[in-house]
């Protein structure tokens, strides 16, 4: 299983990367827990999660080829 994780806005500064590849997580909750473990500063940040460009509001099963994005509060316009 291969899953892409994208970081946007201020989160890019937190993780020092725009994207990473993961393979060991079966759902968004377990992925998020691991990310917060690796990047402690994520615990202080507000963000939403999108799976394949759709914002999710609860734990979601991950499938091969999925793209997960961590989205800080929007500031367009």
């Amino acid at each position: 299983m291969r899953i892409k994780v994208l970081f946007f806005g201020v989160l890019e500064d937190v993780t020092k990367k725009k994207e990473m590849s993961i393979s060991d997580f079966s759902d968004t909750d377990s992925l998020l827990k691991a990310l917060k473990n690796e990047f402690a500063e994520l615990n202080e940040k507000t963000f939403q999660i999108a799976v394949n460009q759709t914002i999710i509001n609860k734990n979601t099963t991950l499938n091969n080829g999925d793209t997960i994005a961590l989205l800080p509060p929007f500031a367009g316009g």
Partner: protein
Amino acid sequence: MSKKVLTEGAIAPEKIAKSIANHSSKTGIGAHNIFLGQVRADKHEGKQVKGINYSAYEEMAEKVFHEIRESIFEKYDISCMHIYHSLGMVKAGEISLFVFVSSKHRGVSYEASRDVVEQIKAKAPIWKKEIFENEKHQWV
């Protein structure tokens, strides 16, 4: 699929003029409402903003803009609607958002235009990084 909303750098006034001129053949239109977002040279703790660097989750943003477009055409009796939003560096005083709504009568052009702008602010995955005179930056 509609044309892309995200465009590299500032939106030139000439592009706005061209967009207006393109509507002169649509003689059922009686009212245009245009909203422009301009980058402000705000000060934070004495440091002045010299520009904003816009970044986006581009594929998702274009999808969201498309959904906004569909929702507006469903809600309002309008003739045309165009949105352009900058990506990358836009200097203070330059235009980063161009919303253009055209309709037969004036009321609906104002309402739809405002709705578009509010939906963009709420739903489009776009972020601003204020760049200061001293080259430091701050995410907004």
